[in-house]
């Protein structure tokens, strides 16, 4: 069942720029330019793209904050532009850099307000809160004023606040930005739990490839307001012709070794860097290296998301 549906959605802004001392020039910018996709219930989708690609404009339209210039848009059976407050009951939103919690009040008070504003029945509120508190390890923080929480603690607090009313869809805008490694891991674990156990549909924007790798079965890449890729992470690598890197430490320095299915891109003493297509498995390559040369150590490096996308754009321009 499609929970999010977009059909040829467009959204443009008029931007006024100063030209000269007094003159101003109006310019139309198409932030979203003919976007069509659907997301089924229970999916977890990574929504990525460079800054200014139209990600947050899309999220704002999906939450009903912004109205599309044209096209059809449905979320959980509701037209966001027309029924913003009804939609609000069915979605949860977390902005990584803007908290919805009350700065000077204990965390608990923000949840109490959510109960009243979202009109959540007492029993359900208690059950949901208990569950979030347990999974996000918030027990000790409930009576702490939000201003005293660390960034990671606050993000966990925000996640709980966004889920108390059992939303069908959860939008996350950069949920792990600025967090330390431990907090990132906790947030991801929780999101996986929410997605698989509760079946909540998740749409997240991120700059962190690991978020997508660990959470999302599907990635959508947007650029200049259009979807330029929609599929699995592996396919993204193929589409972008991205390469992973096998780093091997040989027993002794050698000239560039020769292995089928990979090419040496760098040699530094006994250490050599071998690039191979990202969708290929590293195992057979490793086996053939080990069969021919004595190995001391090895590691596999993932491609950076920016590189993958950048290469894809280059393709798109040529194609």
């Amino acid at each position: 069942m499609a929970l999010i549906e977009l059909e040829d959605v467009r959204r443009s802004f008029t931007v006024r720029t100063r030209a000269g001392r007094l003159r101003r020039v109006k310019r139309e910018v198409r932030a979203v330019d003919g976007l069509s996709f659907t997301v089924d219930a229970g999916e977890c989708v990574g929504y990525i793209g460079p800054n200014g690609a139209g990600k947050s404009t899309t999220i704002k339209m999906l939450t009903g904050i912004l109205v599309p210039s044209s096209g059809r848009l449905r979320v959980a059976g509701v037209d966001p532009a027309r029924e913003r407050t009804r939609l609000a009951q069915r979605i949860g939103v977390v902005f990584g850099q803007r908290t919805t919690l009350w700065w000077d009040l204990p965390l608990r008070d923000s949840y109490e307000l959510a109960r009243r504003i979202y009109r959540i029945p007492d029993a359900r509120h208690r059950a949901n809160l208990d569950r979030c508190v347990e999974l996000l390890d918030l027990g000790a923080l409930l009576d702490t004023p939000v201003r005293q929480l660390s960034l990671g603690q606050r993000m966990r607090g925000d996640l709980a606040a966004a889920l108390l009313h059992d939303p069908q869809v959860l939008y996350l805008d950069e949920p792990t930005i600025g967090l330390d490694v431990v907090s990132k891991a906790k947030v991801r674990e929780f999101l996986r739990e929410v997605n698989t156990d509760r079946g909540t549909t998740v749409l997240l924007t991120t700059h962190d490839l690991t978020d997508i790798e660990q959470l999302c079965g599907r990635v959508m890449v947007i650029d200049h307001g259009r979807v330029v890729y929609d599929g699995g992470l592996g396919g993204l690598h193929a589409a972008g012709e991205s390469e992973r890197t096998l780093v091997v430490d040989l027993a002794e320095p050698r000239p560039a070794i020769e292995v089928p299915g990979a090419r040496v891109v760098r040699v530094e003493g006994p250490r050599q860097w071998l690039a191979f297509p990202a969708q290929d498995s590293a195992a057979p390559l490793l086996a053939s290296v080990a069969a021919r040369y004595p190995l001391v150590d090895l590691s596999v490096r993932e491609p950076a998301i920016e590189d993958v996308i950048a290469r894809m754009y280059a393709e798109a321009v040529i194609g």
Partner: protein
Amino acid sequence: MAETLTARAAWSVRSWWLVAAMWTRSIMAYRISFTLMLLANIATNSLDFVVLLLMFRHTDTLGGWTLPELAFLYGTSGLALGLANLLVGSIDALGQRIRAGTLDIVLIRPAPALAQLCAERFSLRRLGRPLQAGALLAWSLSRLDVHWTPDRLLLMPMMVCAGTVIFACVFIGGASVQFWWDEAKELQNSFTYGGATMLQYPPTVFARELVAGTVFGLPLAFVNWLPALRILDKPDPLGLPAAFQYASPLAAALCVLAAAAAWRAGLRAYRGTGS
């Protein structure tokens, strides 16, 4: 239709109440600062009246009105502005919220945006002005020899309520402008605070065109001037029909319609052409 409208209004009031209660609790985290600010607020608001007192050391009447009569205007103007400011005054920070991107947080909650924004940063310290103005109104009534008739008795509460609504509409209408021009806050101040200052003085002090502007333009004259003419039995410098002196509720209703339209247009513009 009527039923859903009442339900929506009730939900708006409740949302306002919930958010205002959160802010009150927030501010009580700084209790001493709160008390100091309440006192400072009362003192600041009293300055205008001290100036009036000093003026009346040099004269017995200003524009043909005595000190207790001016105190009546001062009290009713301050009461209306103060109550409006208490209830919806925070809306004037809208431009800041748009710039900081925090307006979006209000828009993702299942409650009316206007109600939430009016309660935002709600502070009981704003009670300073209505308290001080109310006290002066009481003093003026004790010194004035009003010939109380039923219509005059009725005009008193009607005037305060309508005045509060009119000023609240000026706040909301002014804030709506910030959807297009986010630095319009100060402009709005000149209509709210400037308007209230004007209403502290008798209409006879000002140029007729200016007074006419407050009747037929921005209808501030209905806040206290026109009903006060009737209650205190003073001549109308514009010579308008007596009906105008009873028309405050009507003016307030028109203001509500205008402010609601402005707000809806502003919000639509933000969601339609936002940044």
